[in-house]
């Protein structure tokens, strides 16, 4: 008989299999000895912690590999059979956006992965080979593989050409969003993953459950994929990033300025007392940097000062 530590590891492996069904046998084993539950939970949690640390590291590593000049040329050659990608590769190269075939060891066979990334302040629309369209906000990274897209960071809106036989899917970590003929927006940040649907319907698969979102619906899922209860009727992410008129329903200044940075590429630091203030309304982000800063000052009643590497926003001091 194996020592209980090893048995616990075996059960943890089994339980991590999405198709695992023998929960009652697991329960019997857990009940057989009071140490079993402790060992089992420990193994599950530690492996989960390690896996999510590795996953985060994969994402940041593949980002470092993005090199605008060398890699776009590589992609253009690799994908030369597919005209859409050729076009996307060239326009991306002109815009200084990196598009590369992903050299990581994930995903061994089949069509190669294409990485589309934007810097803060860069917007980009790309037509995929199936004629679905993707609009990327700034500071965003997508890995595309056929009709499977991984959103590694940032925000993108998808207008999907529906194909019953080959569903279009967007993955964020373990969360899967599948279209049912649709326009939808996905955004990932420290708070979690936001999905908002503007037309049609998507199916979201997360944390072992599957649910549908229709036009006008949105959800916020935490890292583990569980819906965040506060999102029911709570503030959503900003809308209008494509037009440059960012509309917020009720967001902290920290969130607002993160959106501004992503959309414009302007680094703005907040005086510490400001981060928790909240804002509802529309910010206009058109024009030059000076105009954007001036508009922000007026709309938010703040005063901006230049500092090394960007701007700092402060509460105006009486004079």
């Amino acid at each position, binding site marked *: 008989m194996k020592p209980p530590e090893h048995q616990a590891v075996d059960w943890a492996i089994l339980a991590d299999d999405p198709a695992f069904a023998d929960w009652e046998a697991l329960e019997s084993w857990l009940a057989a000895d009071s140490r079993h539950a402790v060992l089992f*939970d420990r193994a599950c*949690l530690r*492996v989960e912690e390690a896996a999510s640390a*590795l996953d985060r590291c994969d994402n940041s590593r593949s980002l470092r590999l993005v090199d605008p000049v060398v890699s776009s040329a590589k992609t253009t050659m690799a994908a030369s059979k597919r005209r859409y990608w050729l076009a996307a590769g060239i326009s991306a190269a002109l815009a200084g956006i990196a598009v590369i075939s992903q050299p990581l060891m994930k995903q061994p066979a089949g069509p190669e992965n294409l990485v589309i990334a934007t810097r803060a302040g860069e917007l980009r629309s790309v037509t995929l080979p199936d004629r679905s369209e993707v609009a990327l906000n700034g500071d965003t990274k997508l890995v595309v593989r056929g009709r499977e897209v991984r959103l590694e960071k940032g925000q993108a809106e998808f207008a999907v050409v529906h194909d019953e036989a080959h569903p279009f899917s967007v993955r964020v970590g373990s969360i899967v969003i599948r279209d049912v003929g649709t326009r939808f927006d996905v955004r990932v940040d420290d708070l979690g993953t936001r999905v908002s649907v503007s037309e049609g319907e998507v199916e979201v698969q997360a944390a072992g*459950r599957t649910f549908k979102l229709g036009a006008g619906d949105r959800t916020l899922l935490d890292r*583990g994929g569980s819906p965040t209860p506060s999102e029911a009727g709570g503030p959503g992410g900003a809308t209008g990033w494509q037009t440059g008129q960012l509309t917020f329903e009720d967001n902290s200044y920290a969130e607002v300025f993160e959106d501004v940075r992503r959309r414009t590429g302007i680094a703005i630091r907040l005086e510490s007392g400001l*981060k928790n203030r909240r804002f509802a309304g529309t910010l206009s982000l058109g024009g030059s940097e000076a105009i954007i800063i001036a508009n922000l000052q007026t709309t938010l009643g703040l005063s901006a000062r230049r500092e090394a590497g960007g701007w700092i926003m402060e509460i105006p001091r009486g004079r």
Partner: protein
Amino acid sequence: MQTGGNTGEHAGASLSLIETFMLYRLAIARFITVRCGEEAEDLMQELWIKIQQVDTPVERALPYIYRMAHRLVLDSRRGASRARDRDYAWSFATGRLDDAETAMAERALIAREQLDRIDRTLSKLGARAVRVFRRYRIDGVEQRRIAVELGVSISTVESDLRRSYTVLSSLMGERDDA
């Protein structure tokens, strides 16, 4: 009185989640209780609420419910680190930002050290075992497919997983005890 347990084989298919939950309440409660005794009642309540919110048909209801219960247990087991997050949120909300920022920098440092340790430990097992672990635990690919992908037997995949899970459980353990 229902008896719950040991009839899982033919459950699910035609039963809705709610019916299945009703039918297997006791077995599911046992599964939760054996892992987190005093919290079990709250978790059962949370599970019941979550089940009512699922609005798509589920193919195999019973395993689905058990997995939800399993996730809930693990979430509550992670309680200690959640409490740290709450402290952080609190210092942020009350404007004690210096504290919060220091805590954040410390945590980033700890995360980096932890990642280095994971990397070093896993790579000792060899490239194939690392690959198997990533495919199984991060990409969610089933063992049979991994075996085909890598051109190895299923028992090789099993033993690779056993090795990586074992070292990771004890590695992360070192830090907890520190």
